[in-house]
């Protein structure tokens, strides 16, 4: 998701602007385009992952209902010299702030921080 993305089309197919451009029979030819809808405004608290404490058990990634925890191939070396091949990041565009990740984290590496503007 980039800032200057074209919002009039998805996967190269244009969204309808007039009634006669709407696909026949209500077909939606844009598979998986709800990822354009940002649900970040729903949350009042946001998860913050402490990369030092995280043991890469993958539980937050598994239990996230909104696929808002991303698993990225990013190497991380902790201050104690432990080397991890993957890192977990939060997709703040889609996170609804339910707090399942923080509740299920076995080492309390995820903190729910109040959202401030």
């Amino acid at each position, binding site marked *: 998701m980039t800032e200057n993305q074209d919002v009039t089309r998805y996967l190269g197919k244009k969204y309808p602007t007039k009634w006669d451009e709407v696909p026949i029979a209500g077909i939606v030819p844009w598979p998986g385009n709800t990822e354009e*809808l940002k649900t970040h405004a729903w949350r009042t608290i946001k998860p913050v992952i402490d990369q030092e404490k995280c043991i890469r058990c993958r539980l937050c990634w598994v*239990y996230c209902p909104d696929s808002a925890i991303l698993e990225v191939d990013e190497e991380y070396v902790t201050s104690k010299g432990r080397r991890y091949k993957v890192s977990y990041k939060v997709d703040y565009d889609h996170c609804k702030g339910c707090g399942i990740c923080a509740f299920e984290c076995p080492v309390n590496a995820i903190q729910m921080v109040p959202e401030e503007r």
Partner: protein
Amino acid sequence: MEALKKPVRTIWDIPRPEQFAPGHNMCQGCAAALIMRMLMKVVGKDAIVVMGTGCVEVTTTPFPYTSWKNPWLHLAFENTAAGASGVEAALKALQRKYGVFKDRYIKVVAIAGDGGTFDIGLQSLSGMMERGHDVMYVVYDNEAYMNTGIQRSGATPLGAWTTTTPVGKRMRGEPRPKKDIIGIALAHRIPYIATANPAYPTDMMEKFRKAYETRGPSLVHVYSPCTPGWRIRNEHTIHVSRLAVQTGMWVQLEIENGKPRVTVKVPKRKPVREYLRIQGRFRHLTEEEIQKIQRMVDEYVEEINRWVGEQAIGPVVEE
């Protein structure tokens, strides 16, 4: 993304690519979203999703948006399984007459909520199972009609508050126990029946995979906590599902060709009080009513143990 081939033994066997897009309108902490995400990771792209009305149907497809990356068909409450059998028959006819999809196996996956399965869609489900269509039927059971505003369904457990079973002097929540959909499916002699729970994701995905590989009708009954309807905290979704298994309210069953097996064994069962006290829909229950539910669960567990022929679920141990 291809369908899952090898068994899911650990959490690291779960594939990383997503087949179910984020950004849907399901509530914060909804377990149904998690179930759909795991289901689509298993079935991959070669599947046609046939969906009955329900929470997931309404929240994932606000026109002109969709969360699904598969061919997807909307159906009403009562004809989910009927539509799924039609799609499957049409695929078979296309293969026979025109030879399309010769080298690919395409699965029809029917998804419906508990209202669309236990109450309204029961006749078409029965017909689908009786005719032996090659359809995988997934029920996400949030134990009431949550989408329209928490009305009771056949799946509502004993004593639960809903808007149509209110709590007062005359009525103390839902007066009848939950309908036994597994027993109904078992009576149709279908090859694969399972109950799954999102708190055990590897077990759930393994059951989805087995249902996917079954050639013939299969039914997977998935427990799905609903945060607004059950009056639980958003972060307690997985905690509540785990407690349901640990207290014996929910038993992780798998019935392959009539042979039952308990996949998640519970040697020491917790008292049901722990499960009931965490949910707002059971907060009116008195100690007497909790004991009544405890006796009911004890009988159910005993029945399951007798059926599988071993002590799969142990006795209650107070901590």
